[in-house]
């Protein structure tokens, strides 16, 4: 019964994983998270705000991230997100799931031994 999320260019379910991965590098607020994902992916991925904020909300609700108010680079009060211990475990689970998936898709697509 959950409503469909706004359409995203990304594979379903990968945004959460990438947010968690981003937060491994340190606490960040929404804008930084989006920027980091886009930069790291060499701007191949575009993070839609319509997905980012509900996703952050969801992660916080599941206690994979916690939040606090801090000062942004421009010295504005911003909501910072931090990876929790629970979130770290989830990241490990999702990463291994993602690796399997990537290999499976690679095999199907005829790539040698899947993508590395």
């Amino acid at each position, binding site marked *: 019964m959950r409503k469909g999320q*706004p359409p995203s260019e990304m594979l379903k379910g990968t945004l959460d994983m990438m947010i968690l991965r981003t937060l491994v590098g340190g606490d960040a607020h929404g804008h930084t998270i989006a920027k980091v994902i886009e930069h790291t992916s060499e701007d191949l991925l575009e993070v*839609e705000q319509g997905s980012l904020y509900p996703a952050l909300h969801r992660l916080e609700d599941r206690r994979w991230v916690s939040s606090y108010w801090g000062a942004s680079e*421009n010295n504005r009060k911003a909501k910072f997100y931090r990876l929790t211990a629970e979130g770290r475990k989830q990241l490990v689970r999702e990463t291994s799931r993602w690796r399997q998936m990537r290999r499976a898709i690679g095999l199907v697509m005829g790539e040698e031994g899947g993508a590395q």
Partner: protein
Amino acid sequence: MSWLRFLRRRRSDAELQHEFEVFLTEETADNIARGMSPDEARRQARVKLGNAQKVRESVWAQNSPLPLSHAGRELKYAFRTLSRTLGFSIIAVVVIALCIGAATSLFTIVRSVLLRPLPFRDPDRLVIVHEHFRGAWASSPGEFSYNPVAPADFYEWRAKTHGFEDMAIMRYSSYNLTGERSELPEAVRAAAGSWNLFPLLGVQPALGRTFSESEDRPGTAVVILSWSVFQRRFAGDAKIVGRQIHLDGKPFTVVGVLPPWFTYPDAKIQLWVPYKADATPEMLQHHDWHQSQVVARLRPDVSLASALAQVGAVQYQLHLQYPHDPVAEDVAPRSLNEDLAGNVKKPLNLMLSAVGCMLLIGCLNVSNLLVARSAARQKEVAIRSALGAQRGTLIREQLAESVLICAAGGLGGILLSVVATRSLAHAWKDLPTAQGIHLDGAVIAFACALMLAAALVAGLLPALSTTGKTMMKALQTSARTGASSVSRTALRKSLLTAEIGITVVLLVAAGLLLKSFLRLRSADVGCITENMLTLSYSLPDKKYDTPEKMNAFNEGLLERVRNIPGVRGAALGNTLPAAGYWGDYVFTVKEHPPLKPGEDFPNGLMRWADPGYFSALGIPLVSGRFFTSDERDARSYKVIASHQLVRQYFPGDNPIGKHLTVPAHAHKGAPGMVDFEIVGVVGDTLYQVGKETKPAIYFPLLEGFGGGMLAVHTAGDPLRFSVAVQKQIASLDPELPVSDVRTMEQVIGESLVNASLSASLVLAFAILSLLLASVGLYGVLSYLTTQRTTELGIRMALGAQRDQLLQLMLFDGLRPALFGLGLGLVASVAATRIFQSMLFGTKPLDPVVLVGVIATLLAVAVLACLAPAWRASRLDPMQALRTE
């Protein structure tokens, strides 16, 4: 977690908006750093953020549990729909409020009286033990006679059985409370309880202590005050404990004060004395002195049945031991609540059922109205369901309306019942006063459950009927709506049939109760009841210790009262007609052969009468003579029998000169002299209106009687004489309190209050139900007429006559009424049997009542159907054909 989210969603929305702002500033700053102009940078940032509103909505939805937000939306829609048809909504809410209010009120009373245990320690293990006569005295097989207990029996039980932890005994008593200084004397109701009564109930006194075992013996003078007399008469002064008060002129030491909540067995008891304190040794020894209540506490490891079996065995031994006394064969238990409720239980249950019926009718009515409304939305529902709406959702939406109506009605009903309960409890004199009657958590929960049930009953039927598989027909029938609603009309008609059926049952019940009440009111008491002033007094033993002294007062009073101008006559007896039971004596006829074993003892009400009693009250002499003033002081051994006694025990025999042997009326000095010669026979009087005539034995009051009830027959309004009569009493003995100054009509009225209450309440319920049913009938037929407008137009165009149409429509409406009437009558036959015992001089299938009910219902039904049928027959065919 999700609830917390739900409750904090407004805050989290604000936080989100703040996050957007941060995003915009950061992105703008980044864009400027990339070399954009500030305006362009801000624009690009906004483009990147996209539709912020959509994100907010999505997070908002994440934070709202789905069913809850749906329910909120449905309630909102329902509220809007209902407020569009304000008239309908108000009527529906008022109907439900009345029904739920009445049901809650009665439940409150039922709960306080029958269900809520009395506030004693471990009330589950307390039980009242009665004596039980297996013979004809028991009203019917399977029912117990619940006879009061003789103290001699009780002491045997307590000594010889071990099933109960303890047993205590108590009885009613009364005293004249006189003041030390010049306070007014007062007749107070009192109770005598064995020393272990309060410990057994688990009652701690508020002040002082309860009785000790050594105080529970004849001649002691200790007293425990109730909280009310402690506050009222002694101004709540704790120093009263240990001091003396004067009861019947004797000093009694106050040993304790009971807590405010203790109003058992009723709130009128002002003080307690030890059980044996004012009992004569004869009272304690006789096994036929049935006067007392026994309350027992069951041992935790013993079952009630086995504990009672022990007591029953002891009682049976006693029965065998005293074959010539009325000693019961067995015992019977009753819960404390039921024992107090006594004869209130039946009317209470009857009224609760009546209210339940009314509630059902109210729900059916609202249901009926909702069916009509949902018919109008049929097409909408069909289209939505074709587009994929789930049936559950559609049903929920429709239920929301009835939930709203019932919630509003329920709230109104609870408020209403607060007021109604208070006035009902006030008007109902027989209700036990051992505990207060008030709303509590359980009652509110009951009301809420009623509300929910009402909402389901009222809403589910219409909701299910419009969302079924057949609803697609609504789409198929395209524009013409004429024939689309046959099945729904059938549903409404069956609802109506049920409604009318229940109404008929209520009407029959109300009619029977009303007729029974009218019968009661016109019942012939057997004496003059108009212009009759009555009052009671009781001469204290200490001051009036000989028959001569008592007679001097009584005769002096009678003479003085008879000499008051405007007084036609005065009668003095231990009691007066219609004033209550006041005890009976068991007797045998000396001249008759001895009773066969197992045969019931003859018994008659015990009455004392002064020589002028019968003529002043207008009780006719059947044969023989009245008492003379020579029959006085030392026993004259003469009695007068009532006509009923003669009919019952001297069939075809002349009673004059025969002797009644009354062992219980033995004289202190002469225990063997118990034969009384019948010198006269007088007409019957009722001891209580509504009860059957009982045989009565009159003894001469002048054999020395310490008080009683005085009746004064006056020339005008009797209450105008009350001061004059009381002045005469005060001039004879200024310390003597007078109580119960009332007219005879008031005395009789009091025994009618309850009958009139149940009759008028049930009648009110029945009339309301009739009104509801007729509104339902009218509504259905009006709806039907509108639905069939086109059809009727075609019929007319084809040549149908107007009176034919009128007939057609009228019959269509009357059919469910007739059907319901038949069903209701059948149900009444069963229902009325249940409360048969509440009826006085009225048979459960009283033809007058039945004909009346049938006529009323038919008249109302025809009236309700006539208007829409008439409208149908007056249709303009052209107009009708054009109507969509």
